[in-house]
């Protein structure tokens, strides 16, 4: 199985090519079939790969089908690596990806461009698998930019909508800003490590760090800059909410479950480097925590069902970074996985709702869908409970682990824990605000719309994901609650290098403290839910009341702190404005003007000069004589000089 590791990404690529070239000819059904089948093959192969991996003692397998770039000592093979971390990732990507492909068959059934949709989606899975399977930075970078491309294509899938086209472009460009950091980090790594292979870099990292700690810090920060772009962290998160312009399954797959977690994966992958530079970890933790809280605050007031989920995603990604930042790499990846389950479910559920309401996304025009769409409702509810951290659902396990680590880790801080906990409360609140607004209460959609449960191809993935959202977390059930922390042990070999560099974990924390914190995290979750119930079910006039009372705050949140506007004002406008100015006043006026000016000068000189050529005989003769006189003058002068 393992020697064929490199074929795992190729299946979706095949799907992409088939759908891209022949999709239109073969029709919608076939294209959906190809799309799903190729991912399924990948998924099955991933499972097989995982099984084979478990039988390898050193839990790592490398294969490089061919050399990619070889220039002198710069040698980058197109290499793939399977280790526990990438195994988890390929399972999540192909597994969740498969479910979402299946869902899409139903969701996109009315769209004439379905072949294009599936080809792009397959391409995305290809790049994502390349990203997580890469055994060196550069191949990872292929996947990294490749998923960005697919994100761009899929956000702008409904290209006729100007807002979709704009959102796609924004996503790509903002990501590129992050990629700049990533590529600079790659430069630094190559010139200082002499290789881009993960294994070699991490082996040599301690030696390099011993010489130049600042270098590792720089590399870490630059890598993290890349991660903030891809994983939508402050300050580069702005593209993600807009990315909701894409079809909802795309949002589920790319902008919730997989692509946006690439940054988390990357930081985890480079945990050794980060661990060597404590500053970078602190930055990761702080940015993560700040993003978590900040995004959650914006999610509180959004009216677009997908926007709420988008901010929620940003917030949850913040959690993951928080975990990484406090050295709990396994916890971060664990949350990544569980989040993939329940967030994909939430999006798919939202998609189901949107589908049922004929593309209505405004929460204010929903309500009371519980009865009309039972499967959607119940699965959605499970997911909401999971994200709110209600035990024993998946979200509870992973989130609790993060909160505990942020408090207890030697490089953690109680403030980080506090921020995380507050965020947890907010999360529970806005999720249930959404649930209540969409599924409970009176229906507020027009009476012409008759919501209906989604077809089987859409419902079945919902159920599958619902199951995963419940049991997915159990593989990491903490020891303290009687579990085996199996997930953490599985990943341990990957993070060995990093753990060795981090301060040793103190064993002083009492069991009581841990239980206490678990209780707190459950409590805030329930608190949030109750709070939402209070406001949106029991006394729906309260939010209205508050809205008018705290209009400023409300507007601030609703308009997302005007961050887009600020970026526009301080970056985009000045850039375009100065470009226009430079073009007119410098390029055309000065640069081109100089060239044309020289030509004009010659013309002017010529025009003046040619006037002296009057055609008069006597003037010509005078010129002649003048020439003679000058020549004779020169002769006399020279002669006098020569003869002394």
């Amino acid at each position, binding site marked *: 199985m393992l020697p064929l590791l490199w074929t795992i990404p190729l299946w979706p690529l095949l799907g992409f090519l088939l759908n891209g070239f022949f999709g239109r000819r073969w029709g919608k059904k076939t294209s959906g079939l190809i799309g799903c089948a190729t991912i399924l093959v990948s998924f099955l192969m991933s499972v097989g790969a995982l099984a084979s991996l478990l039988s*390898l003692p*050193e839990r790592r*397998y*490398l*294969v*490089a089908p*061919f*050399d*990619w*770039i*070889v*220039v*002198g*000592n*710069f*040698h*980058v*093979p*197109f*290499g793939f*690596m399977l280790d526990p971390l990438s195994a988890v990732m390929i399972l999540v990507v192909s597994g969740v990806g498969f479910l979402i492909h299946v869902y899409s068959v139903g969701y996109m059934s009315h769209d004439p461009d379905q072949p294009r949709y599936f080809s792009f989606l397959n391409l995305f899975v290809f790049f994502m698998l390349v990203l997580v399977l890469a055994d*060196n930075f550069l191949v990872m*970078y292929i996947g*990294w*930019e*490749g998923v960005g*491309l697919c994100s761009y294509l899929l956000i*702008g899938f409904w*290209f*006729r*909508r100007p807002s979709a*086209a704009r959102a*796609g472009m924004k996503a*790509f*460009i903002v990501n*590129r800003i992050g990629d*700049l950091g990533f*590529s*600079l980090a790659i*430069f*630094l790594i*190559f*010139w*200082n490590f*002499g*290789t881009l292979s993960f294994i*070699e870099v991490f*082996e*040599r990292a*301690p*030696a*390099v760090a*011993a*010489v*130049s700690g600042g270098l590792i810090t720089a590399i870490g920060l630059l890598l993290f800059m890349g991660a903030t772009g891809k994983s939508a962290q402050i300050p580069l998160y702005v593209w993600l909410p807009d990315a909701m312009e894409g079809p909802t399954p795309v949002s589920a797959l790319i902008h919730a479950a997989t692509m946006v977690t690439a940054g988390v994966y990357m930081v985890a992958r480079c945990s050794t480097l980060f661990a060597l530079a404590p500053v970078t970890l602190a930055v990761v933790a702080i940015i993560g925590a700040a993003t978590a809280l900040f995004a959650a605050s914006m999610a509180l007031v959004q009216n677009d069902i997908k926007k709420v989920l988008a901010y929620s995603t940003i917030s949850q990604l913040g959690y993951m970074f928080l975990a990484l930042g406090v050295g709990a790499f396994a916890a971060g990846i664990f949350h990544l996985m569980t989040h993939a389950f329940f967030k994909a479910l939430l999006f798919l559920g939202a998609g189901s709702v949107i589908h049922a309401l004929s593309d209505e996304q405004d929460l204010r025009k929903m309500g009371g869908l519980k009865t009309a769409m039972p499967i959607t409702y119940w699965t959605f509810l499970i997911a909401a409970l999971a994200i709110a951290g209600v035990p024993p659902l998946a979200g509870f396990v992973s989130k609790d682990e993060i909160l505990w680590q942020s408090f207890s880790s030697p490089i953690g801080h109680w403030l980080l824990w506090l921020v995380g906990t507050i965020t947890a409360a907010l999360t529970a609140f806005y999720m249930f605000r959404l649930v209540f607004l969409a599924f409970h209460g009176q229906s507020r959609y027009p009476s012409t719309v008759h919501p209906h449960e989604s077809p089987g191809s859409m419902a079945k993935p919902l159920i599958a994901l619902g199951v995963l959202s419940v049991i997915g977390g159990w593989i990491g059930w903490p020891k303290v609650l009687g579990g085996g922390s199996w997930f953490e042990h599985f990943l341990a070999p990957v993070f060995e290098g990093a753990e060795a560099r981090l301060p040793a974990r103190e064993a002083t924390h009492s069991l009581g403290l841990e239980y206490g914190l678990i209780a707190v995290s459950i409590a805030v979750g329930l608190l949030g839910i109750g709070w939402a119930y209070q406001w949106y079910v029991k006394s729906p006039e309260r939010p209205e009341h508050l809205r008018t009372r705290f209009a400023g705050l409300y507007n601030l949140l609703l308009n997302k702190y005007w961050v887009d506007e600020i970026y526009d004002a301080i970056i985009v406008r000045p850039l375009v404005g*100065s*470009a*226009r100015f430079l*073009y007119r006043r410098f390029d055309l006026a000065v640069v081109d003007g100089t*060239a044309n000016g020289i030509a004009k000068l010659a013309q002017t000189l010529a025009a003046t000069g040619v006037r002296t050529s009057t055609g008069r005989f006597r003037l010509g003769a005078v010129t002649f004589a003048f020439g003679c006189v000058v020549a004779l003058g020169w002769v006399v002068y020279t002669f006098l000089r020569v003869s002394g």
Partner: protein
Amino acid sequence: MGLLSFLIFFPALIGVLLLVWPNERQHQVRTIATAASAVQFIASLWLWFGFIPGSGFQFTESIDWITRYGIGYRVGVDGISLLLVLLTTLLTIIAVVSSFSAIQTGRKGYYASLLFLETGVIGAFVATDVFLFYVFWEAMLIPMYFLIGIWGGDRRIYATVKFVLYTMFGSLLMLVAILWTYQYSGGTSGGTFNLFDWYGLSIPATAQPWLFAAFALAFAIKVPMFPFHTWLPDAHVEAPAAGSVMLAGVLLKLGTYGFLRFAVPLFPLGFEYFADTLWVLAVVGIVYGAVMTLIQDDIKSLVAYSSVSHLGFVILGMMALNLVGASGSLLQQVNHGISTGALFLLVGMIYERRHTRKIADYGGIFAVMPVFSIAFLIVALSSIGLPGTNGFVGEFLILLGAFRTRPIPATISALAIILAAGYMLWLVRRVFFGPIVHTVNETIRDLSRRELVTLLPLVILIFWIGIYPKPFLDRIGPDLQLWLSRARPQEMIQVAPKEEPAPAAVRKIPQHSPDTTLVPRRDAVPDHDDVATAGGVG
């Protein structure tokens, strides 16, 4: 007659034939031109397969020409020129085929000009005699001048005269420098224009900056480097599509090629003297070009300005003076030829349908021309250096190399990658996405089979170089290594004896450090294969 001579003179011969072809049989002109350029391309493939990397100049021919001045007809290809020659033959056939429907008047002259242009360009690429190079360098102006001036747009005369004047101004100063250098080789008493002999000249350090400046000016205008770039947008905007393809695809490469082949290795001290200036100009060109590109409202002008930025990268890679940067620089020349050539081709196709180049006249084209749009998107992505496409390999190597030498300029240049995404995707968005605002656009037909065929080789190359650039890099590597040894002034070579010295930080590790065991002691980095097999076996 050798292969290279065939490649040089065959197109010219056919060009002459076309010129005297009877008017009443004009319809055969396209066929002849296509056949000729196809023969030419197939013949050039022999270069690719017969080329032995690392054995210096190959396919050489040397015939005495003007013995009195030590001038010979000396040609040969090495890794530096090989790819560019192939690019030329490929783009010529594409340019010919792409003009079938666009050019309706004066076909004889048009196709003859294209073929003459091919002669000039290939001649300049393979000449190993400086005089011969100069002859081709100048001679190729003429067909380009006609291509723009006769078959161009509204302001074609302004554009073409500007193009010629700019180029002539620079190249005449270069002529003086060539003659001057010739004096160092012995002048009329036993002097020579043989490039190989020139490489061995010891030109006084006081003269080198002047000579370099004269050469560099000519090449910088051709590239064009900031601030000599303003002829380019005009020329491109006015040129017919195939003219733009050739101009961007190969003519501009002559500037960068000139740096690699002549200016730098002949006058390494002069190069060193102007290194700071060139760095600054390259970086400014990259960023400035990208910023200018942002706000162009004419598609061709936009692509033209993007060329300024891209060619700045090529210069940057050369300035890095290490193998990585130089390889990237050379590869990027080819890439730019492919990508920008394809862009101009695509713009030409859409111009043929709508007769406008204004971005504002389009919008929502994706709905009516999906194939065209996807082709454009692929090329645009290659142009902005998306991994998996050729542009990435080139740009990455350039930046990687430049970063080694001077990190700050490289970082600033890397900013242009963001801007590149900005201008290209903005263009794509405005042209292809959104609703169709102009009803005329609703009935544009998609690409014809012929147009697809012209694009296909370029698209294949985009992915081939992007995914498996090894055959290309292998062919250029050894000669660039040699180039580096010439380009670096003597003292630098003494200080840094080995190419790609071991990573800085690693080298600084003290011997007694316990960590050194983790670090391989040899300069060369361990082969990846070791690791892979180790992992595979275990």
